[in-house]
């Protein structure tokens, strides 16, 4: 089948589509697509007299022949029942009698003249009769009618000289369609629709999905067959013309130009092959044809058909043409053009059409005329108020057929126009945009162009239409009676002009509000004197942060990288080095021991540190029988270093006749004190010159408590004897009974604790320290500071050896002095050698690495 051209985008679409595949616009009306694709009607081409199901559905079983079918696609037509019109006057319009209706409407349509002011009496009937073709016309699937067709239609066929069917069968299957290449586009679409794309809306309950003419009951449907008087445009292809190919706009405008152009308009009805006379006559003298798309109804004054044109129209149609002069736009988007405009006929044709006017149409005319007596149709309101063809049209130029159509259509909305369709409720029309409750749109099918056609306005004359519509709608003022005038509500006088504040006469001179007064003044403070400072939103990253970030990144990268195995070092393993060092040191010691000692002189004179001399002096100046407190707080591991010095000091104290009391904050202290006593002179204990007070718990707090209350802290010695009641101690003196404090420890903290907690309580008793070499740097400030908190120190093996030399009592320190001196010497040598070797190896390694890096 021929493709369908979309009216919106102008592109061809398959015929089986309802919606454009490009722009999604509808290709055919809704009621067409409601029905599935059906086979061509069997009644086309004169075959079969069966009434299509949709047509039968229009007429319900309860309805008679003269009743209007309900539930059909044009139900809205039947529902239109304005108050001004009698329902009966319209009802018969849809009383389908196939044998008569088609012929009648068609004959009546052929006799339509230019749109004129319709008569109120018969305009509505004419409109309805005209519009009844919508049910039966090429858009319907009505079976072609084999009976008589309008002569004008047949005439068209004969004039064409082509094999035309006897009757113009506008049913989808019954008509012999001209070739798509020859027929105008709009006609081609109609023909295509007839061939099966379109089917009238049917009642869902009663309509079968598939319809075929053969299956239809023998209900005759008015069949339109073109007669010799049929307009040529029905049977002959449209002349090739540019306008004809245009559907709307440049590419979309229908092909009416081929039909309605004056050039193609036949001079006479008989000679008119392409354009019917009635249609051609639309452009001959009617330049104010209303457009179905215009915003307002045309204001063109209705024109009555000329006498010549009247002679061409059938009688029944000519009367309608005189009365109906409403423009198509005035019909509210509904076809309002009189049928005579569409189907202009010459005199002969008009007469023939008048003769072939169906009875039902006549009846409608009569009924409508009677119903319209004294009634005024509701005001006309266009359906597309805001529509403007200029906006809709694609091209700038309006096709000729359209312009002529508008020119020929001079029907103006008239108050006396009769609506072509009656509706059940006001505003219930599918073609009108009028909101419910308002006046029904008036449709004049006989005096003006079809709604869709009459609303096509001229692009170059858009300004006329609003004026014309304004004029048309302008109501003549009337004079109200006085009593009625007095009842007019007094509206509050509204000020025509807005209140103007005259206090501020300043007029703004700059800015967007220039020229206006009353503008708020802009103060100087509102204007920034300077440019605001710019704050960078860039992240401030310092160099240190970047370095840290790089470091973190490097760490993260190194985590994934496999670490290379360290190369085996050429140097000997640390195991051998360790053994070698031990061997060297051990040999030195054994050598010194082997030599028996005394090889290296003991420190004397200035070699003895001052702290040792002070300690010696303090003990030397100690009173006789003085009590000395010995704090034995060194650990067993430092016995070799401290025990020698401690023994020397204790021996010196014992030689001075001091009463010694040993106490310790270390649990192993009492044992060491006993060892010390045994090494010096075991008889001291028996002479009650040495007392072991045992372990003093509590650490710092214990020392503080001992310093504050020694008897309470240590009431007994290790033998269980009460110490503080023995001579020469005085229980009342407490810690002050001791003339000297000797602290023997390797830990600097212990020594500091004794200095901080006990020494202040024993002041001014001197405090001597017997320390390890590792604690000397920490305690030396107590000795060197002023006031002096430590009176003397004996440090390590060297101090012990020196003190033994001072008291002239060689001991373990003197014996170990040779080995100690030899080991220190060896150690210094090893350190120096090792340092030099390490530095050399490091330099060599760094050199190699730098070479490798430089080479890379």
């Amino acid at each position: 089948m021929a493709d369908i051209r979309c009216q919106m985008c102008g592109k061809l679409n398959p015929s089986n589509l309802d919606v454009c595949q490009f722009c999604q616009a509808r290709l055919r009306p809704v009621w067409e697509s409601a029905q599935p694709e059906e086979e061509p009607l069997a009644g086309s081409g004169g075959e079969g007299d069966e009434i299509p199901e949709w047509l039968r559905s229009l007429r319900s079983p309860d309805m008679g022949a003269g009743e209007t079918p309900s539930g059909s696609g044009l139900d809205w037509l039947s529902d239109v029942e304005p108050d001004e019109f009698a329902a009966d006057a319209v009802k018969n319009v849809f009383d389908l009698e196939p044998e008569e209706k088609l012929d009648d409407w068609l004959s009546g349509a052929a006799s339509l003249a230019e749109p004129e002011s319709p008569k109120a009496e018969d305009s509505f009937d004419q409109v309805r009769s005209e519009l009844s073709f919508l049910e039966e016309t090429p858009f319907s699937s009505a079976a072609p009618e084999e009976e008589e067709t309008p002569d004008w239609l047949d005439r068209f066929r004969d004039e064409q000289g082509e094999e035309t069917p006897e009757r113009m069968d506008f049913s989808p299957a019954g008509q012999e369609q001209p070739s798509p290449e020859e027929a105008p586009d709009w006609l081609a679409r109609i023909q295509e629709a007839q061939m099966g794309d379109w089917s009238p809306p049917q009642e869902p309950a009663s309509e079968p999905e598939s319809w075929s003419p053969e299956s239809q009951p023998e209900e005759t449907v008015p069949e339109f067959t073109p007669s010799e008087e049929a307009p040529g445009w029905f049977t002959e292809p449209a002349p090739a013309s540019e306008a004809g190919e245009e559907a709307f706009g440049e590419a979309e405008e229908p092909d009416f130009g081929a039909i309605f152009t004056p050039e193609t308009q036949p001079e006479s009805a008989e000679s008119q092959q392409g354009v019917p006379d009635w249609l051609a006559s639309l452009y001959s003298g009617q330049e104010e044809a209303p457009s179905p798309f215009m915003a307002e109804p045309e204001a063109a004054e209705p024109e009555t058909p000329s006498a010549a044109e009247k002679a061409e129209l059938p009688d029944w149609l000519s009367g309608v043409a005189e009365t109906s002069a409403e423009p198509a736009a005035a019909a509210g988007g509904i076809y309002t053009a009189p049928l005579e405009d569409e189907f202009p006929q010459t005199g002969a044709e008009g007469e023939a059409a008048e003769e072939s006017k169906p009875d039902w149409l006549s009846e409608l005319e009569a009924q409508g005329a009677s119903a319209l007596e004294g009634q005024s149709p509701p005001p006309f309101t266009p359906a597309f108020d805001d529509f403007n063809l200029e906006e809709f049209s694609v091209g700038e130029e309006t096709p000729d057929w359209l312009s002529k159509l508008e020119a020929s259509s001079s029907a103006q909305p008239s108050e006396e126009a009769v609506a072509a369709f009656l509706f059940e409720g006001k505003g219930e029309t599918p073609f009108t945009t009028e909101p419910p409750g308002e006046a029904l749109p008036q449709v004049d099918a006989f005096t003006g162009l079809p709604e869709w056609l009459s609303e096509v306005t001229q692009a170059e004359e858009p300004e006329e239409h609003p004026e014309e519509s304004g004029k048309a709608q302008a109501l003549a003022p009337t004079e109200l009676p006085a009593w009625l005038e007095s009842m007019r509500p007094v509206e509050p006088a509204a000020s025509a002009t807005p209140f103007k504040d005259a206090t501020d006469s300043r007029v703004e001179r700059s800015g967007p509000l220039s020229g206006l007064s009353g503008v708020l003044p802009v103060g100087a403070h509102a204007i920034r004197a300077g440019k605001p400072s710019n704050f960078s939103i860039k992240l401030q990253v310092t160099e240190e942060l970047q370095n840290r970030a790089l470091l973190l990144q490097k760490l993260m990268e190194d985590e994934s990288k496999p670490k290379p195995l360290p190369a085996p070092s050429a140097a000997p393993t640390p195991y051998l080095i360790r053994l070698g060092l031990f061997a060297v040191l051990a040999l030195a010691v054994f050598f010194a021991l082997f030599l028996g000692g005394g090889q290296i002189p003991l420190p004397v004179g200035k070699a003895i540190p001052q702290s040792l001399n002070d300690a010696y002096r303090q003990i030397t100046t100690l009173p006789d029988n003085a009590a000395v407190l010995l704090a034995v707080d060194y650990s067993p591991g430092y016995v070799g270093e401290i025990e020698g010095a401690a023994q020397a000091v204790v021996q010196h104290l014992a030689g001075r006749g001091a009463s010694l009391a040993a106490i310790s904050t270390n649990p192993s202290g009492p044992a060491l004190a006993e060892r010390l006593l045994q090494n010096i002179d075991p008889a001291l204990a028996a002479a009650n010159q040495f007392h072991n007070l045992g372990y003093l718990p509590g650490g710092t707090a214990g020392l503080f408590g001992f310093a504050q209350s020694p008897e309470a802290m240590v009431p007994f010695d290790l033998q269980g004897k009460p110490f503080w009641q023995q001579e020469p101690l005085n229980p009342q003196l407490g810690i002050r009974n001791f003339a000297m404090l000797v602290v023997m420890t390797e830990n600097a903290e212990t020594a500091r604790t004794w200095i901080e907690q006990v020494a202040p309580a024993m002041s001014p008793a001197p405090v001597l320290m017997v320390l390890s070499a590792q604690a000397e740097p920490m305690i030396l400030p107590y000795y060197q500071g002023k006031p002096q908190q430590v009176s003397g120190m004996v440090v390590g093996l060297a101090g012990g050896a020196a003190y033994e030399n001072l008291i002239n009592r060689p001991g373990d320190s003197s014996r170990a002095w040779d080995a100690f001196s030899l080991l220190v010497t060896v150690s210094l040598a090893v350190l120096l050698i090792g340092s030099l070797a390490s530095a050399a190896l490091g330099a060599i390694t760094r050199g190699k690495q730098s070479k490798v890096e430089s080479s890379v």
Partner: protein
Amino acid sequence: MNLANISDLAGALIGFLLTLMVFSYLIKDNPLFRLAIHIFIGVSAGYATITVFYNIILYRLISPLIQSPLSQIYLVLPPLLLGIWLLTKASPRLSHLGSPVVAFMVGIGAATAITGALSGTLFPQIEASINLFDLQAARQSGNNLAFWLFNAMVVMAGTITTLAYFHFGVRDRQESAGRRQPWIDFLGRIGQIFLVVALGGLFAGVYAAALNALIKQLTFIWDFIWMMLGTIL
């Protein structure tokens, strides 16, 4: 060394063996060394336990509790109760009972330490640092005044720079995030030198103590061997 008594001989022998076992660490870590270590720790802990029990619990808690008259028992009860509560710290369920005791002990210890540090170390040392610049005392001591002042300057510089080294406060500024002030950083670097020297001296003392311990043990071994040889021979 007098090995007349068997106990002394046994003691010496055990000492000798333990010494060798400890020296075996020179080769590598071995069970003998670990045995010797364990013995040392065990003996030390046992002796400390016995000493504490004998010197404190027995003589200062149990004996007074038994022998003291009832009018003086109140002097013993608080230490007894506090000691029992302190033992509850070993139980997770009853540890809350020993918390007050621990708090009491910690509080007293902290107070004692702080007061002692202030009065016994901080103030005297500050006074001593100031007195370094006492020229009269320098003259009285008969020392060279220049040397005395130089010594004082060095001591004060060392003191200030060492304190600056331990200053880790930084300014809250974006441009110097995580950095000290430049002059504090400079002083800290100088104080770092003094710290290095002080730590070197401490290390020397520790090394000297270790050498003394080595000499002591090697001497013990030498003496034991010679004694054994003398005894045997």
